[in-house]
């Protein structure tokens, strides 16, 4: 996909919201990307773009303007078996945008689809930021307190709830995650929140 489009003034930038470069390293080294593959331990991107889960994608045009806001889309259908989110529709629209310049939304539609961060979201991110710094100082118990506070303030922010699990000694694929996922989705809340036009089937069938 990328190899097909990159001659057309197109670049993919991937950003790993991970605890450390070493957590992201195996993924990056396996994929051997020819595009920038960046590491964001402090969740700078989540703060700037109000991202609350991964994967989150957005499209930015040649002038640096957001033409498609935060959305859930996997690069291929590998994850679809567990998430039931479709990649194919998104990739078709991406190809049309890159090749033919067809924008998926008007500016007004982009704004209407954006989710604005709340004061609680930003307070949670401050808690994450303090916790992440403390973790880097080896102050793990103190870090865990701030991660927990962040999770309370923004329970929908899985970059905090799941993204800090390794820093508090939990397995982000383990029973604590499955319990969190089950409680969240059984309360009728989606774990992934795709934009309306790319929503596949109900993603709660994990």
């Amino acid at each position: 996909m990328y190899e097909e489009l990159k001659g057309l003034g197109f670049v993919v930038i991937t950003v790993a919201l991970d605890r450390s470069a070493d957590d992201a390293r195996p993924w990056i080294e396996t994929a051997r990307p020819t595009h920038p593959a960046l590491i964001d331990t402090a969740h700078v991107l989540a703060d700037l773009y109000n991202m609350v889960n991964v994967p989150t994608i957005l499209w930015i045009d040649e002038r640096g303007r957001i033409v498609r806001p935060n959305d859930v889309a996997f690069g291929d259908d590998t994850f679809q078996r567990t998430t039931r989110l479709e990649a194919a529709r998104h990739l078709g629209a991406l190809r049309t945008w890159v090749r033919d310049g067809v924008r998926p939304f008007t500016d007004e539609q982009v704004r209407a689809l954006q989710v604005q961060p709340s004061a609680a979201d930003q307070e949670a991110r401050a808690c994450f930021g303090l916790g992440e710094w403390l973790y880097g100082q080896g102050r793990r118990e103190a870090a865990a307190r701030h991660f927990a506070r962040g999770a309370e303030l923004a329970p929908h922010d899985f970059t905090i709830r799941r993204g800090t699990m390794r820093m508090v000694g939990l397995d982000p694929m383990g029973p604590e995650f499955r319990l969190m996922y089950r409680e969240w989705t059984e309360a009728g809340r989606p774990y992934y929140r795709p934009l309306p036009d790319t929503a596949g089937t109900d993603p709660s069938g994990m």
Partner: protein
Amino acid sequence: MDKSAATEGAFVLINEGRPLAVAASVVGSQVWLPADAVKAALGWELKPEGLCRGDVCVPVPANSPIAIGEDIDLAGLAALLRRPLALDLEERAAYLGAVAEDRGAALASLEAPDFRLPDLEGRVHSLSAHRGQKVLLVAYASW
């Protein structure tokens, strides 16, 4: 402020991700920062008009002063600027985050916020270096 009850010493103020060591007095649950340190770290200073940075001034309500003498209360400062604050008195560290409305306004402007982040080799990349290209920005994680 009762300085006799204060614990003096280094304090780390993390301003939107940038840690800065400042001198501070912790009294009870309050952190008092020297006015000159606040100005050096954040650019804000107290003037007769209020709390000012450049031409911008935020009035300080008379009934909730944020300064005693030359010291400024960190939580009061954060509240006045509407900035989120995470504070750890024992660790003597605090994180001042970004204002929700500022982040929201930036997103609604549709100008993609710029960032600078390293790759595995430590080379720093910025979004703005890709002006003139269409960008698919993908945030993911190993978790």
